[in-house]
């Protein structure tokens, strides 16, 4: 053997070795075979536990804030498990970090489905990231529940994606609700739009323009990752806008406010629910609120936003009290935040869906239960879910509020609507007055 031959031999043996390493890990024959016979158990479900998982950005640019969502969900599942689980089963929640990179989302979701054999995915975060896996989850008939993103794609066409469900109100209805409110209450305002350059900004703009297309004088888009928003705000200022509707993530809300301070730009602000977290944004801005009362989130005073679940600014709300208790008992580091409440809230909905699906848990049964009963699910949401066999979109409405010292003061009743040209109506279901059961577990 000469050296060249040996090199090639090495190449081949590396191929073989890696492959063998892969093969060893496979653990032999697939023993979780679903089987068609009666009494067979569902993937990811045993008598003692049900295993689910989700992908979230725990590292990278999108991680700040969002990485807290799974900790909230985990805290609620811990609470449920400590109280006997659902139908005697505890909930195992596997969290994978995709760093907001669709390539990783794809391989990690494969890992959840093929290796960890999860029963369903829950709360997976992000539009581009989830876009990478939605087809494959549906092809494999894995329930894909409560995607943490307000894109329409998760629920507007159950025929195409029968296993996927949205959860939060989609961005379009938020745009519609604030658009209508502006057209009725500020018909003379010159409206500027400050939008994230993706589906979030796009869907919201579509909703807003349905009502106040003529009032919009300027639309500026920023690219996530480029923190210099000075040129965009300068353009909004130059357009003469006196009301800016800002569909931004929290850090960009704060950056926008800081640049406006620098430019002396003082419009009335409306900030989308996603980007208005008063604790987070207010906390970020507090340091710069020269002369204002320290220790309050007063830098956002007068800013309007929307709300669809109660948040940390309402410590007397019975739901928030439950979440506080759950969080304290979970013993994890850090404070209760709105991101954690978000995670607990969809975890609550999931537990409810498990309850509704009955003792003989199957993937089909779970989806059926959400389609049949989801519209009447109790929970922290202010407006009912839209779940049915025709729509997998989540919460149907929200309430416009104005921030004062970090607390949202209601400006309107809870308004509900749907995508397209569906009317906006005041919610009469009484969903907003729902309080959690004594046990903290859905009944």
């Amino acid at each position, binding site marked *: 053997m000469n050296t060249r031959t040996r090199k090639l031999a090495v190449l081949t043996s590396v191929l073989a070795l890696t492959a063998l390493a892969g093969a060893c890990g496979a653990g032999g024959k697939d023993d979780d075979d679903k089987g068609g016979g009666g009494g067979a158990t569902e993937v990811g479900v045993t008598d003692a536990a049900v295993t689910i998982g989700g992908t979230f950005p725990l590292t990278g640019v999108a991680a700040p804030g969002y990485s807290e969502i799974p900790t909230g969900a985990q805290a609620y599942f811990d609470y449920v498990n400590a109280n006997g689980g659902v139908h005697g089963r505890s909930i195992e929640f596997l969290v994978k970090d995709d760093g907001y990179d669709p390539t990783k989302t794809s391989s990690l979701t*494969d890992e959840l489905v093929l*290796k960890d054999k999860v029963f369903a995915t829950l709360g997976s975060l992000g539009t581009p990231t989830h876009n990478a896996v939605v087809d494959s989850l549906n092809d494999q008939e894995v329930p894909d529940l409560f995607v943490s993103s307000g894109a329409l794609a998760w629920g507007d066409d159950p025929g195409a994606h029968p296993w996927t469900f949205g959860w939060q109100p989609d961005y379009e209805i938020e745009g519609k609700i604030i658009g209508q409110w502006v057209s009725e209450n500020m018909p003379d305002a010159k409206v500027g739009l400050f939008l994230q*350059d993706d589906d979030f900004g796009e869907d919201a703009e579509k909703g807003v323009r349905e009502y106040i297309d003529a009032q919009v004088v300027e639309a500026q888009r920023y*690219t996530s990752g480029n923190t210099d928003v000075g040129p965009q705000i300068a353009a909004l200022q130059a357009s003469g806008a006196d009301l800016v509707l800002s569909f931004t993530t929290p850090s960009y809300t704060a950056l926008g406010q800081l640049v406006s301070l620098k430019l002396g730009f003082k419009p009335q602000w409306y900030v989308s629910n996603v980007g208005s977290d008063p604790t987070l944004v207010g906390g970020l801005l507090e340091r710069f609120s020269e002369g204002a009362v320290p220790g309050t989130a007063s830098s956002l005073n007068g800013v309007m936003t929307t709300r669809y679940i109660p948040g940390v600014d309402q410590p007397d709300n019975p739901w928030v009290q439950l979440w506080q208790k759950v969080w304290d008992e979970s013993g994890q580091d850090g404070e209760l935040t709105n991101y954690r409440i978000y995670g607990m809230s969809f975890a609550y909905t999931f537990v409810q869906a498990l309850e509704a699906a009955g003792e003989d848990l199957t993937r089909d049964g779970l989806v059926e239960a959400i389609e049949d009963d989801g519209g009447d699910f109790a929970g922290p949401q202010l407006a009912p879910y839209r779940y049915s066999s025709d729509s997998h979109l989540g919460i149907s409405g929200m309430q416009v509020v104005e921030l004062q010292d970090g607390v949202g003061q209601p400006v309107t009743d809870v308004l509900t609507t749907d995508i397209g040209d569906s009317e906006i109506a005041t919610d009469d279901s009484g969903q907003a007055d729902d309080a959690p059961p004594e046990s903290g577990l859905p009944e």
Partner: protein
Amino acid sequence: MRRLAAVWHSTLGRHLLVTAAAVLVVVLVVESVDDFRAVQLTQMAYLGIAAGGLTVLTGLNGQISLGHGALMAVGAYTTALLVSDDPVLPLPVALLTATAVTSAVGVVIGAAAARLRGPYLAGATLALAVALPGVALHFGETLGGEQGLRLRVPETPGWVLDAAYFVTAHDLTRSKYVAYLAWFTLVVVYLLLANLARSRVGRRWRAVRDDEVAAELAGIHLGRARVSAFVVSAAAAGAGGAVMALAVRLTAPTGFTLTLSLTLLTAVVLGGLGSLTGALAGAALLTFLPSVITDAGTSAGLDDIRAAELAPLVYGVVMVAVVLLAPRGLVGTLHAGWRRLRNPAVTPDPTTSADAASPGATVATSKGDTR
């Protein structure tokens, strides 16, 4: 028997024999693993294809590129556009087209890169890696913007299913079909790269890397040698990107951040620059190691978030350590150790260490510029 020996003694013949062996190994392995491992193997394959291209460029020609992630994006987007919901082109044609388009882009970038050296080239390709995702956002109508382009792997052709069933007596799943596609692409790409590296072209690349002046005196056109190396490397990256698009089922700007380019560089450095075996080993490490590290972190009591940061931390440390302690990379070091064990008296011959597909290649054997 003598005829076989004759085949073995011609470079092409030897490579073809090894290729046949590799195909056999691929079939055996893919058939013996479950669907999840098949998915992981696919990931290893597309990283390996692109890393193979990068290792040829950086190891053999001495040009560094931090922008190979962007080239993968070109291949991936081309594939995504060609393989839409209603495929007009068969997959192999789509893969070839993606490779061709990326090569064309490679000509342009390579022509620019040929004028740059060392850190200038690194910086320019770095800017390329950061800039290219913006193009997808700007042409959102065609390229899908932030959400990206979703693609479906076309139905596995009937004859492939039949052939697979005939050989293995199992039905071929979608993930395994993609794994086969990826690994056969890898085998073809590596065969071509190994042949090129052994040919006159490859010798010119190395000559340019080792000593510009001597190369020029020997009649080598420096610019042409550099551009050709870049184009070949880009073609491999394009093929890798195309396979990646099929494996990920989505092509979006967030999938092609600087991290991807750095990942490729990590793979070739870990494996050993200039060595295809090393590139493949590096790709294997990057595919299989993260979950091991993260799991180790979690079981050591770290929370999910901190455990998730462990993998990049380990990579970074290993990358620094490799450059400092084992500049020949993993494969090169193992190989040298092996040689020393077998033949303690002979010190490694430095002249063979710069060979293509050579596990013994050092990170870079000379300065490669005339500063």
